[in-house]
């Protein structure tokens, strides 16, 4: 009651009383727990409005523990959790609503479909109330909207990963949750299957309008979803915004980050194209210019750019009509076979390393000394602070 009043006041003050705020998740918790790396503290506060909010962080950042606290499977040491103005947890008022009565939808990392039940039985499981006819109608509608009607009588082990994912989502959503928690739900799926499922989820949420917390450790997934993202590190939110702002800020260079990039160059920012989300950087050594994604940086700022050798295309004549903005002429220095890939070193004023397949080497008749062109997509250039 107290919380509801406070929210009312806030809404009146800000002048707009939108339905979005009424349904939001508000959370401020402190949770200490032991992990493999020793004592760990989760100290998080944020508000999530209806729609998808992404929680991004490396494994061990506390993502799953956070979801468990919201669902009621774990108990925070202190703080408050409120969803749609209903308090689920408040240590001061000694409120801790049990899992069963929170009505929070939670799709666990490995889905946890009941192996002994068919897809339809799984979906009906959460429908304890209502008549048999009513339950059947709701599960049928759910099977329909997630396009799994044909799997009705099959057991989880008899269907594919993408289909299992749909069944798990349908099983959770059929209960009309006030909040949906997704713990790396699509990690094992290919991009095409993934985007279709996300699309169906978005369509569903157009009519239901609940906050959805989407946990992932994949950068690609964050950009594909394109929603607000909270960056989690060591149990804390360290950045909050749209993926473009949060994910592309130049990051502190660490050994772990450098491992993925064979090509690392010091650069100076030459110009910013904020309207296009790109900028131009000049390599400090030789004046070569690269178009890179825009990051929060001033002109003349010193940055470092990393490019994975696998992200660089190699052409034996000047390519035309390409979408990629960086086409760099150079001269082949050497070709060396390492296991099943060819490591090509190219002199472009600086030495760049690129990886080819054996077939590509043979098709292009590549020889040391011949002129070649390197093609680098803007988003293959990863910026780091020096």
């Amino acid at each position: 009651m107290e919380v509801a009043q406070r929210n009312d006041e806030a809404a009146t003050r800000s002048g707009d009383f939108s339905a979005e705020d009424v349904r939001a998740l508000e959370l401020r918790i402190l949770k200490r727990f032991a992990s493999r790396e020793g004592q760990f503290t989760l100290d998080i506060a944020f508000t999530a409005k209806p729609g998808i909010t992404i929680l991004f962080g490396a494994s061990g950042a506390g993502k799953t523990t956070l979801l468990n606290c919201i669902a009621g499977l774990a108990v925070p040491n202190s703080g408050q959790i409120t969803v749609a103005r209903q308090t689920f947890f408040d240590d001061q008022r000694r409120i801790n609503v049990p899992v069963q009565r929170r009505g929070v939808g939670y799709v666990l990392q490995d889905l946890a479909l009941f192996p002994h039940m068919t897809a339809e039985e799984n979906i009906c499981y959460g429908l304890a109330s209502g008549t048999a006819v009513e339950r059947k109608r709701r599960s049928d509608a759910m099977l329909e909207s997630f396009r799994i009607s044909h799997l009705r009588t099959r057991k989880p082990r008899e269907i594919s990963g993408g289909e299992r994912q749909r069944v798990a989502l349908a099983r959770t959503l059929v209960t009309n949750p006030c909040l949906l928690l997704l713990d790396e739900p699509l990690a094992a799926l290919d991009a095409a299957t993934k985007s279709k499922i996300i699309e169906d989820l978005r369509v569903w949420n157009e009519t239901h309008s609940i906050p959805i917390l989407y946990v992932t450790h994949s950068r690609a997934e964050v950009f594909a979803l394109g929603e607000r993202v909270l960056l989690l590190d060591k149990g804390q939110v360290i950045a909050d915004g749209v993926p473009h702002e949060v994910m592309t800020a130049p990051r502190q260079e660490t050994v772990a980050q450098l491992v993925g990039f064979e090509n690392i160059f010091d650069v100076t920012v030459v110009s910013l194209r904020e309207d296009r989300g790109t900028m131009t950087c000049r390599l400090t050594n030789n004046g070569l210019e690269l178009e890179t994604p825009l990051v929060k940086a001033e002109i003349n700022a010193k940055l470092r750019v990393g490019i994975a050798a696998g992200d660089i295309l190699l052409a034996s004549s000047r390519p035309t009509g390409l979408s990629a903005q960086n086409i760099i002429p150079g001269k082949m220095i050497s070709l060396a076979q390492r296991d099943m890939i060819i490591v090509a070193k190219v002199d472009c004023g600086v030495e760049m390393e690129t990886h080819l397949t054996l077939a590509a080497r043979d098709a292009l008749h590549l020889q040391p000394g011949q002129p070649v062109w390197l093609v680098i997509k803007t988003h293959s250039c990863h910026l780091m602070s020096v």
Partner: protein
Amino acid sequence: MDWQAFWLTLRLAMLVAIALGVIGLPIAYWLAYSRWRWKFLVEAVIALPIVLPPTVLGFYVLVALGSRSPLGRWWQGLTGHTLAFTFEGLLIGSMIYSLPFAVQPFAAAFASVDTRLISASATLGASRLRTFFRVILPLSLPGVVTGLALSFAHTMGEFGVVLMVGGNIPNATRTVSIAIYDYVQAFDFASANQTAVILLMLSFGLLSIVYAVNRKTWAIWSWK
């Protein structure tokens, strides 16, 4: 061939299995999911019948059921006779004797159910009871069948506890194993042999069922 002893034993084993199903399942549930720090003591107590000589167990049960114990007095006030040397007394003794054979497979089966399924069930709004009957029990079925079959078979073959608690009263406490002992004492080897063979076959059949339900894959049905 003492058919009376045979039917009595079957009846006893059946009742013990049913009773242990009823009281063993909650005990096993508690053992599998409780985080109480002294749980190991309860586990040890339940496992005692496995290692104690049946005579020791039988002795204590006899004392506990006798007319000097509170339980014995209460029963005597209720029915007019003591529990010792009756079928009811035998039933109680057999239940204690077979308890670990039911509870341990139950608890092991419950503990092996993926806890994420239990979490998922809770987030879908299911009560603990619903989770137990819809998720835990169906997924533990081989363990439950094993526990019931083992307690049945174990009761069929018990001797020491019966001798101590039940004595040898035809149609009340005279079981097959006691009958066989009597035949041998009386040098009636033919009858002893007949009865023993039947008991052997029955036990073999039951244990075959136990191993069959616990078999993960059936090689002979591999084309399915």
